[in-house]
């Protein structure tokens, strides 16, 4: 499925937050995000003029309520700013943003008078910037005599702009503004939580009452400002505005990239506020990058095939000993399998064969056989890797299709659905090169499993139907179809396919096991037992089938029987002493379900299963 479609289309993904709805309507909000280049120096230019304007405005109007008046002042100021900062590109960004803010402000109906002043102060403290001393500077220049109501607000206004560059500029710009525009900016820069507003509102109210608290507040903030560290300029200690200004003027360069990045991230952080949906792209990008960079994460190719670690050979393989009598381990393994010998032993023989270079037909036979044997022995991890190797060699050797179904089954068991689909399609192509498979099908594999399964199913069904029309029943096609249905959770259909295949090959114990599993996962555990019994009668050492019987017992609720079956399976693996993880885990879990934690603790990879016989389990 197309991710883009999901993202843009999914209204349901929007957090239920009334503000998000509002924000959506207020355009121009996002423009602030586009401000990546935050001016550091331009701020200083208009400071002096700003002061004048501010003072002018203060004298003009006592109340800060009139927006029109503000707009006029602001547009004046904005124009002036533009003039002044003509040479600095960053300033134009700012003025652009500023005009955006103006517009946003005018649209904002809700009077969010509760400027989260406390929130701002906090943010402001965390903001690093070159202009910190500048903030201090002009503030120092403004003795308490200046209309105090405005100054704190301007300070707060500063913190509303995370860009340190905005510093003084914003300070002055905001000072003529009323609380409403301030609110507007706030909205414009992203939403802060309602609760923040309430709290801030309450807090904001208080300082407005008396001037003394305000002054003390100013002093607090001033001292906080002084404490804030500078990153950009070397003149971290300089409090003199003029010095800083001169330095800025002379350096004439935008802040370093790292500074920008920092400001950007701070800004984004602020913007994101409580809105988890915002910056979706960024989040996704991060996730994507993280996924690809993490050493530990499993990587998939674009067709869903996981990049697995290579096969790990058994450490204590007696057949590797050159003095051992087995001259032809590959043949010995085959014989062992044919006569229902131990699967574990057969696995070891095959490993020895591979080690010695006896790879059988086409160089892949031993690998594929090893994989299948390992899987039968309920060692999925090893089997999966061996099969991967085998299929790879086979495909290179021109015998594509060999082992692919087994590999697809392994993928299914491990949950790699898309990989399973890919493998089945490849098998289909290899086996029926003349079959008509649309290019769409191949492409769909690059997307999601959900997308691909439908098309791969159609492709396989097409082949099956044409066979049916000709009166042929090809067991392999039925098996492939069955695996596909099983992967997609359609266990009833899978069961039908396997039954059809079984009619062709009644002696195939693997098929009986597959039928059993389809029934078991399709919530028919009793029936599955019958199928498993058949498999086991054909192959008593079929460890996986025993495991599955145990699982079926679990699903019925017969815990004790389940344990006994697991223990039997483990007993079969005695020869190497290396047990299948899956068996151990499920055994542990069963003990947990039986509330026998003492037994849970007993289950370790090297446990002597005789211990359990003493506990009363009969196997």
């Amino acid at each position, binding site marked *: 499925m197309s991710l883009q479609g999901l993202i843009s289309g999914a209204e349901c993904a929007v957090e239920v937050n009334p503000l998000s709805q509002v924000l959506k309507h207020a355009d121009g909000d996002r423009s602030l995000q586009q401000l990546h280049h935050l001016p550091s120096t331009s701020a200083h230019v208009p400071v002096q003029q700003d002061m004048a304007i501010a003072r002018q405005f203060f004298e003009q109007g006592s109340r800060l309520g009139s927006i029109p008046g503000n707009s006029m002042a602001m547009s004046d100021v904005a124009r002036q700013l533009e003039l002044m900062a003509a040479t600095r590109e960053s300033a134009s960004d700012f003025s652009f943003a500023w005009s955006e803010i103006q517009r946003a402000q005018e649209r904002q109906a809700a009077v969010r008078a509760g400027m989260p002043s406390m929130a701002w102060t906090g943010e402001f403290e965390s903001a690093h910037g070159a202009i910190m001393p500048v903030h201090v500077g002009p503030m120092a220049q403004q003795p308490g005599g200046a209309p105090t109501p405005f100054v704190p607000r301007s300070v707060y206004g500063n913190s509303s702009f995370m860009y340190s560059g905005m510093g003084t500029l914003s300070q002055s710009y905001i000072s003529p503004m009323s609380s409403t525009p301030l609110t507007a900016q706030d909205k414009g820069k992203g939403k802060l939580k309602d609760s923040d507003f309430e709290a801030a509102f309450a807090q904001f109210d208080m300082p407005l009452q008396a001037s003394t608290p305000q002054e003390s507040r100013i002093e607090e903030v001033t001292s906080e400002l002084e404490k804030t560290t500078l990153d950009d300029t070397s003149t971290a200690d300089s409090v003199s505005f003029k010095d800083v200004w001169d330095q800025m003027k002379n350096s004439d360069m935008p802040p370093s990239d790292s500074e920008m990045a920092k400001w950007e991230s701070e800004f984004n952080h602020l913007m994101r506020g409580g809105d*988890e949906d915002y910056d979706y792209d960024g989040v996704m990008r991060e996730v994507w990058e993280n996924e690809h960079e993490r050493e530990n994460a*499993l990587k998939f190719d674009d067709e869903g095939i996981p990049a697995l670690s290579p096969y790990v050979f058994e450490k204590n393989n007696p057949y590797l000993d050159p003095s051992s009598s087995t001259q032809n381990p590959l043949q010995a393994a085959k014989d062992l399998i044919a006569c229902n010998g131990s699967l574990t032993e057969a696995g070891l023989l095959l490993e020895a064969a591979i080690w010695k270079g006896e790879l059988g037909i086409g160089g892949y036979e031993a690998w594929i056989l090893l994989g299948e044997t390992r899987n039968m022995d309920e060692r999925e991890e090893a089997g999966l890797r061996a099969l991967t190797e085998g299929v790879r060699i086979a495909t290179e050797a021109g015998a594509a299709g060999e082992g692919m179904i087994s590999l697809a089954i392994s993928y299914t068991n491990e*949950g790699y659905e898309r990989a399973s689909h890919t493998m089945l399609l490849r098998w289909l192509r290899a086996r029926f090169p003349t079959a008509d498979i649309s290019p769409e099908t191949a492409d769909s594999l690059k997307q999601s499993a959900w997308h691909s399964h439908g098309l791969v199913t159609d492709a396989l069904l097409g082949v099956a139907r044409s066979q049916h029309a000709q009166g042929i029943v090809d067991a392999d096609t039925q098996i492939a179809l069955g695996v596909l249905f099983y992967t997609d959770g359609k266990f009833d259909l899978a069961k039908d396919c396997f039954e059809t295949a079984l009619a062709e090959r009644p002696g195939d114990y693997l098929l009986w096991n597959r039928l059993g599993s389809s029934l078991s996962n399709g919530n028919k555990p009793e029936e599955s037992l019958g199928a498993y019994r058949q498999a086991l009668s054909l192959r008593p050492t079929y460890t996986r089938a025993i495991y599955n019987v145990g699982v079926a017992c679990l*699903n019925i609720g017969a815990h004790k029987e389940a344990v006994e079956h697991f223990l039997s399976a483990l007993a079969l693996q005695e020869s190497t002493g290396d047990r299948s*993880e899956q068996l151990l885990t499920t055994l*542990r879990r069963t003990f*947990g379900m039986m509330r026998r934690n003492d037994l849970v603790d007993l289950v370790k990879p090297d446990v002597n299963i005789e211990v359990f016989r003493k506990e009363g389990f009969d196997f």
Partner: protein
Amino acid sequence: MSDLVVDGFKASQVLAQLSNATAAFSDADKANLLKKTNGIFQLQVKNPEGKEETWTIDMKKTGTVYKGPAKPKADVTIILSDDTFTQLAEGKLDGQKAFMTGKLKTKGNMMLATKLNIVLNAAKDRAKL
């Protein structure tokens, strides 16, 4: 873990089972599952009575299940009803179909939500094909 179970939520039973299952994993198995999944799922489940509960399945760092929102941050938040979750866990409903029909909503890395079924399967006792 009984502290996961909440009355009126069938999902909590499933989650308790999942928790038991992952606790029973050997270290190697757990590491394998964490590597395969590599994500922290936050589940917001709403039951038929309208109550909502949040659980977190951490399959990235610790491999545990616990009640409450994700700490630190969830990679994906999945919002669904109690019934939907139970159906997903039982395999009756396919995750992607649920999403398409709107029974399942995600926030965050939605591709990770597709891996949820791997986690749920690990909890279930599935027969091997």
